């Protein structure tokens, strides 16, 4: 296996948590940046406005289209 002997020179108790932390921190930062630097992620997570859903159900009409169907802004 390629690079299989790396653990002869890097202690697994150091290298494995370092590797897993790098993956966790990297993926967390990517998703945080998506949340803070786009308009559609926060809007999608916010969901459909409650007032719009209530108005649609009161009039018996079809509910407004879900947020997932909207075009993104960025």
């Amino acid at each position: 296996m390629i690079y299989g002997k790396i653990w002869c020179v890097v202690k697994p108790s150091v290298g494995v948590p370092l590797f897993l932390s790098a993956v966790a921190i990297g993926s967390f930062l990517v998703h945080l940046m998506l949340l803070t630097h786009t308009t559609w992620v926060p809007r999608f997570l916010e969901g459909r406005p409650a007032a719009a859903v209530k108005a649609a159900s009161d009039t018996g009409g079809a509910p407004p289209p879900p947020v997932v169907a909207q075009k993104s802004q960025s």
Partner: protein
Amino acid sequence: MAEYKSDPHKVWPTGLTEAESEEVHRNLIQGTQIFGFIAALAHLFAYIYSPWLK
């Protein structure tokens, strides 16, 4: 390094043998593959059910 003399197969600085090192590596690679598969599935669902890339 008295331990070194007791087992000539151990490699320093970690003191693991090459077989042990490859076993650790094999498990790490397998874990990474499983994580990657689940992440790819999650991204597929995000692509289908969210406005991402639309």
